[in-house]
């Protein structure tokens, strides 16, 4: 999708609520954009997974088949498949159009906290509270994972993939990065249980949110601390952290019902977005627009920058 106007010199932050999706799925455990940001997935605690067009606010499809809460989902690059993981310890691969479960991968011993496709949607990487990360093959019919990354000493709370890396955040306080290209594992000790990790868009940094209410930006290669962002409250829940589309700000959900954004470089609090009363359960940032998806208390809201005109913007 093309940008309607040239990228602004200064990154804008989403400050304006433009859509609100009443999901009707119980608590929304996760809200995720698809690869291009036109659609989103919401994972409900009522075992369903819903596909929305968040920009129009229309629900497109409901996917039923999980045996318990759906905790995370991700869409494939071509929007043809969805993977999801739930508290039923299963990782499911869905066909988007038919709404059927194509495959179910069982092997985790605990809740599956996070799932990710690799770039070509040939592998699903799932992290579970059983402290393993499992790489499932989507191409073959083998029921067991390609590889189990069991280096973590505690549950995996977050998994992210880049082209050749697997980034995991674990409750044992470590951010591990498995580099397939160089064949090494870098384990960065943070100390506090990690709730969420993500790569920066340029792939050079790693953002890690931990339960000491701190976000840390680490250099991916050396593990050095590039920035530290505090001000929010994250002591109990597995909350998401994001970087905005230009890597200029980092954002994190908070237990006080806000979403906080900090300037990446200066570490100063740039925005505190009051979203709701309850805990902000999940965050997703649009891959290319200053557009934020926030899940809280059973509803998902879409936030855009101030200058956004709901009619004129394609979405």
């Amino acid at each position, binding site marked *: 999708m093309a940008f309607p106007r040239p990228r602004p010199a200064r990154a804008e932050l989403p400050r304006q609520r433009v859509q609100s999706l009443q999901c009707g799925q119980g608590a929304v455990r996760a809200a995720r954009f698809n690869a291009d940001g036109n659609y989103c997935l919401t994972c409900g605690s009522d075992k369903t997974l819903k596909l929305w067009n968040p920009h129009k606010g229309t629900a497109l499809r409901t996917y039923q088949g999980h045996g318990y809460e759906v905790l995370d989902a991700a869409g494939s690059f071509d929007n043809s498949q969805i993977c999801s993981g739930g508290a039923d310890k299963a990782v499911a691969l869905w066909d988007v159009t038919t709404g059927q479960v194509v495959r179910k991968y069982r092997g985790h011993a605990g809740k599956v906290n996070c799932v990710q496709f690799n770039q070509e949607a040939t592998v699903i990487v799932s992290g579970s509270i059983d402290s393993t990360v499992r790489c499932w093959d989507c191409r073959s019919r083998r029921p067991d994972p390609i*590889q189990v990354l069991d*280096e973590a000493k505690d549950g995996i709370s977050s998994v992210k993939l880049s082209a050749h890396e697997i980034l995991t955040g674990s409750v044992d306080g470590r951010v591990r990065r498995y580099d*397939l290209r160089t064949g090494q594992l*870098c384990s*960065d000790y943070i100390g506090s249980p990690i709730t969420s990790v993500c790569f920066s868009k340029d792939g050079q940094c790693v953002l890690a949110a931990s339960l000491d209410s701190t976000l840390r930006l680490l250099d991916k290669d*050396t593990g*050095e601390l*590039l920035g530290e962002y505090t001000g929010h409250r994250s002591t109990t829940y597995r909350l998401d952290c994001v970087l905005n589309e230009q890597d200029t700000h980092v954002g994190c959900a908070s237990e006080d019902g806000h979403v906080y954004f900090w300037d990446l470089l200066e570490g100063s609090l740039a925005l505190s977005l009051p979203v709701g009363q309850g805990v902000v359960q999940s965050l997703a940032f649009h891959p290319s627009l200053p557009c934020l998806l926030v899940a809280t208390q059973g509803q998902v809201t879409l936030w855009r920058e101030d200058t956004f005109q709901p009619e004129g913007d394609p979405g």
Partner: protein
Amino acid sequence: AAVESGDSEEEDLVSYGSALQPLQEGERIKKPVPLQEQTVKDAKGRYQRFHGAFTGGFSAGYFNTVGTKEGWTPSAFVSSRQKRADRTILGPEDFMDEEDLSEFGIAPKDITTTDDFASKAKDRIKEKARQIAGVVAPIPGTTAFDDLIGPSKITIGVELLRKMGWKEGQGIGPRVKRKPCRQKPDPTVKIYGCALPPGLSEASEDEEDEYQPENVTFAPKDVMPIDLTPKENVHGLGYKGLDPSQALFGVAGREHLNLFTGGSEETSNLIGDLRHSKGRKLGITGQAFGVGALEEEDDDIYATDTLSKYDTVLKDEEPGDGLYGWTAPKQYKSKKRPEREFKYIGKVLAGFSLASKPSAPVKIYPPPSLPRNYRPVHYFRPVIVAGNENCHLQKALEESTGKLESDPTHQSRHALTAAQRREQLGEAELKGSPAPSILEYLSEKDRERLKEVKQASEKQMKAKVVSQQPRNSRFQSASPEDATHKWQMQLEAQLVNAGSSDFKPFAKNPEKQKRYENFVKSLKQGEKDALERFLDPTMTAWERGREHEEFFRAAIFYRSSNSTLSSRFTRAKYEDDVDKVEVPRDQENDIDDKETAVKMKMFGKLTRDNFEWHPDKLLCKRFNVRDPYPDSSVVGLPKVKRDKYSVFNFLTVTEPTTSVTQATSEKIQESNSLNKPKKSSRWDVSDKEQEKKDSISEFISLARSKADVQQQPAVPATEECGTVTTETLPTVVTDEDKNQEEESGRPPMDLFKAIFVSSSDEKSSSSEEESDEEQQPTTSERASETTKQVDVPDRSSSNIQGKSVTATTDAGNSSLPTSKQELDVPEEFGPKLPPAFSSGRFCKHLDRKEKHRKIRERHKTKKEHKHKKEKKKKHKKQKNKGKHKNKKPEKDSSSDTTDSSDSLSDMDTTGLSPKELLRR
């Protein structure tokens, strides 16, 4: 006149009946109904029949019949399959009309009081008979149950009587006064008795009074009813069929039923079935069933009532029983049982006689009396192998125990060896037979050496005990020493076979290896303090002790493969793995210092662990990534085998792994820097940090164990604590060693690493060294290979400092190219050493405060660094290039100065490095 007469006639006529109604015009006269068509119908309009099956004659004809012209209507077949259960038995009423059941029918039904509810008095005689029948019924007690369950059957008369005080079994009439009499066990058996003699009625007729209390007036006796139960079966008289309660439940069931019946035991006794009292549990017992396989006695199969049970002579005995010769068997059995064995000979089976006195009690056999000097403890005598050299010892032992006579010539034949026996027998020695001892296979020289070693070790053992005492006293932390010396002694004992020189545990450190070989040699020759001589005189006592330990461990570990027989046998290709466990080679080291680092926000090298990690091939394929280890079959983290029960696993858990990890990370950094050259400048910084980290951790450990500090008042050590043993060539100590260790991925060497590797940081000049090789495409291969536990790491190409790097020798792999100058293995074992810096650059007594200050400084620089980082991303390439340039000259410098030069080089890129700060 006629008219008149006519009228008069009419008046004269007498008319009978009523006149028919005058016919109306045109009306036809009805025909009378013929007889066969005249029917009688009942009140409901149904045809009434006049005669039927129950009223005399049965006509099933067409008229007056039940059904149709055809008579009985055949009923259609209806399957009763589904309602088989509720099929009812038809009674006569089913074939009757309801008229028959009406008041005037043939079977009038009206509400009447049944017998059970009739208010007439109960037939007492019948009742009594019923009770008696219940007692002797096949299932005893059924009537008792009836009485319990059906109280409504008691008629009003009985009820009234009861209310008046009457009880069942009593007679009716005024109460009479009688003196209390003995209770008779059972009244019901009276039915079998003969008529009582009149004079004895007093004694015998109160049997019915069992319910009556004593010393009160008594109700008159009831008239004894006669058992009117008819004999309905064809059994013999008195035959009692199988009693299900006894057959199925044995005694227990019987006792249960006794609650209700009470008299059944007497009944059975009467019949003579005594077996129940035996307490048999289960089984079919009864008359006429013969003797089962499980029954021991077969004397009384059919319970015949023989004459021997009766008295044949009238005597005056038993005046107390009041029977005077009345010898009903039941009474004898029930009442006289205890005395019977002594008095009543006649009751015994024919052919037997009762013993005049009770049998003697079971004899108790006392245990055998013990000898006076017996002690209930068994002492195991040492087992002496009857060999030539042991003969005297054995004899001595035997004499001491007094077991053998001390005649030396008169040996027990068991003490003879085959050779001795052969001599005694005068036989010739077998030719070509296998040599009796494995020693025969040894060369003369080897045998002598063995003997030497044996003697030496014995001597040493003795000496060791003495010599350790003063040694320990030198150290304040003597406890580990104690422990180690204890097993040192054991090791020395085992060192008999140890010590051929074809293995080099310290191959990397030629000096040390030399010392080790000398040590082993001297050990074999029994020189206990040999090590003291060979140890580096510049070393501190603490270091010497450490090295001593180390050598012992090494000697023990390689004992098996270095036996003198090693030339005769092929070595096992691999070590025995039974007692090894697979552990990840690299482990995330302890988080203590990491915690500290995190608290100080010193992320980076301090908090990072780098491991070699092997992705699955398929995963690489799926990710479109070339397999970084195409030759490796390992998936995940490489694992090594460690001694499962190794002392080292317990003694130093964290340190060896730390060092290994660091070494690994270094290696990975090398490869990293090769793959991504732009990063190398950071590595340098990281190296500094790593060093710093080590010093920090050591300070932490220092704070933890003050004792160590005191132990080392002045350690002229190199900057690397692990190289304490190598003062002789301090400059040679480089990270090369660690890399070397790293490469020796084979299990034994890993074990060695676990033992000897220094926990401290090595500082890696290697990254710089590698960096200048980054253009070579092979280096990355090499790096990966070496981390992959390739058997023979060839590092010579990368050896900057001109040291030829040799493969570390495995115990079982002497074929490895072991070149001479091996690198020092810096040992770090036990408590962490305080940081020792050669040339006094760093005061090792730096206290914590100072350390923190430095850390703070470092942190400051870190912050600057952070800001730079953003820009750095864009300029990495250039920076790296600059760095590499900086590094090139460094490789010429000795390793001792490498770090400083590194830090210098860092300074121009990243400002003042914390390491540098620490240095100053």
